[in-house]
């Protein structure tokens, strides 16, 4: 049984112009110790998926359907208090901006100890030792001195390390990392990704890594899910999706990425942009931009179908022919 099973997840926002579906019928699994990358354009619903899993959708957002199971137990319908016990203890989270993720008025140590003692039965002294251990683990030099410092005394990269320590210190088995490196410098990004990978591997923790950055996915993830307009366009092993994408959108996406090396005259480009959630076309959401569009695409909404090692949601794989 997979560690996390997400089935037909729907995230909705009631607005004055009707209900927006930000995440639409998304299903995927995450296995023990696996890193699942989630990519997609801005607004595709990556963060909402993550937030739904950890139960932190901000109102008025709500789960509009589907199930989320952790170790086979449903967690999408837990009471707030039960869900709180799952957060941190079973599922950890890291957000984009390390600068604002830490409370500026508490020392790094206080925040660590607090988290540890909330979830693990431990004395203050033990928790302190454990916390210093975590700081060392995420590569912060002189952790016992740093323990008593405030977040603003750390640099961006260090803060993100602290955030990682905080997310991991109650030893959850699943981490949701929502663009953990976008706010960091290029050279620090790699350090953080490497760190994340290492701790996940050592602790046998699984991760959902939400990112913009195809390169990060390529190096880090085992499998990758591609989202488009709130829907899953394609999911499969990294090598497969990046090198031999099945969905026309994934293909276009890969083509439009500039590469180092001999430069082409033109980049492959997908015309237009992702539709707003308010006017997603019927049928396949990608149909206005799709180079392989055919009549059916405007009417039938494709389901996720197994293709090669993964799965794609495209009528081309549903046996429908142009």
């Amino acid at each position: 049984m997979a560690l996390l099973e997400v089935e037909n997840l729907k995230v909705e926002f009631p607005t004055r112009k009707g209900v927006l579906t930000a995440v639409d019928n998304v299903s995927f699994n995450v296995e023990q110790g696996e890193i699942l990358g989630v990519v997609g354009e801005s607004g595709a619903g990556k963060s909402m998926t993550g937030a739904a899993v950890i139960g932190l959708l901000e109102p008025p957002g709500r789960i509009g359907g589907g199930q989320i199971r952790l170790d086979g137990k449903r967690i999408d319908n837990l009471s707030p208090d039960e869900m709180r016990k799952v957060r941190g203890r079973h599922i950890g989270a890291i957000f984009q901006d390390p600068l604002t993720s830490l409370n500026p008025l508490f020392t790094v140590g206080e925040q660590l100890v607090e988290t540890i003692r909330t979830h693990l039965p431990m004395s203050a002294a033990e928790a302190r030792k454990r916390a210093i251990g975590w700081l060392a683990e995420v590569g912060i030099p002189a952790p016992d001195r740093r323990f008593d410092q405030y977040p603003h005394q750390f640099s961006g990269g260090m803060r993100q390390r602290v955030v990682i320590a905080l997310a991991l210190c109650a030893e959850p088995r699943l981490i949701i990392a929502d663009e953990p490196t976008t706010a960091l410098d290029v050279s620090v990004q790699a350090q953080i990704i490497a760190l994340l990978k290492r701790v996940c591997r050592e602790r046998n923790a699984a991760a959902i890594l939400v990112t913009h950055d195809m390169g990060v996915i390529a190096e880090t993830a085992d499998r990758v899910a591609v989202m488009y307009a709130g829907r899953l366009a394609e999911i499969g092993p990294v090598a497969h999706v990046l090198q031999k994408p099945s969905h026309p959108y994934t293909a276009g996406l890969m083509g439009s990425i500039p590469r180092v090396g001999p430069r082409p005259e033109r980049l492959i480009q997908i015309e237009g942009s992702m539709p707003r959630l308010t006017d997603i076309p019927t049928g396949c959401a990608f149909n206005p931009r799709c180079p392989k569009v055919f009549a059916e695409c405007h009417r039938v909404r494709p389901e996720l179908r197994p293709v090669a090692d993964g799965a794609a949601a495209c009528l081309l794989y549903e046996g429908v022919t142009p």
Partner: protein
Amino acid sequence: MNAAPIAGTGQPLLQVKGLKKHFAMAKPFLNRLLEGGEQQTVKAVDGLDLEIPRGQTLSLVGESGCGKSTVARLIMGLSNPSGGSILFDGADISRAPAGQPADIRRRMQMIFQDPYASLNPRWRVADIIAEPLRTYGMCASRQDERREVDRLLEFVGLNARDGDKFPHEFSGGQRQRISIARAISTKPEFLVCDEPTSALDVSVQAQILNLMREMQRELGLTYLFISHDLAVVNFMSDWIGVMYLGRLVEVSPAAELFANPQHPYTRLLLDTIPDLGMSKRDRQPAAGEVPNPINPPPGCHFHPRCALANERCRSEAPVLRMYDGGVRASCHAVEEGRAIEPIVAQASAVHPLRAAV
């Protein structure tokens, strides 16, 4: 690529010599009085030499805070240089404020990073695009102006009817097209592009980059292109300059830079490009972070992070030296031949890719 030597044919369109910008970190007078210490400065740009041949693109890359945007602002006259000179088509404009003298400034325009912030939210698109036309008095009549605006809108791939809308009715990519339309409305020869696509999704980024290349071909534009993304820079540039803490550490023809990076920092940057082929590889990138620009390390700014650093690097600041193939680098190790072979494998084998989706 044709790695034309810098001192190539004709006069470069833009020439920057010893450009400096120092920001006074104004510690209040009283603090200085009571605590002692000198007036501190951030050397955002510290002696920069550049030349951009007509019709070509020079890109600046470097980490956040290394001074890329400051260079752009200095060239556009948005701030005054603390030293050095800027020659545009032979005329020194380093002390001229933005917009002046009109006949020169009209020929250079800028495209900004943030497509959301670069358009005044309260203006209609047509007014935004027409503003430069009005300021330089380039259209005889309103109809004239409107016709020109419509033409520009269509040129950048928008609909002429879009002129009546407000910016918030457009997506990021479309807004960047509007910015571009505004920038080319005065028929400039030179465009400064400060990370024009870093806020955009990859699929849209491709559209904009393609559009810019087309424009260059069609209108014979010269670009100063700024980005932190080496892959994008590779797609756009003839020349690439790598900046570190306000200084250029290496300037080379694009292909040369990737094939044969000289400066250790350039190598570090290239090494940070994650690559598709070596999936799940554990890289151990150089430790450390960009030092504080208020108090940069002496000698070569990069020496604390550099594996090759020696005593000389710690005390003596290197200068840009010319090497084979139009490459210029400022590094004692390179100069002394201490540099080891390039670390990054080359084009042939795998396609390293660095991308932002």
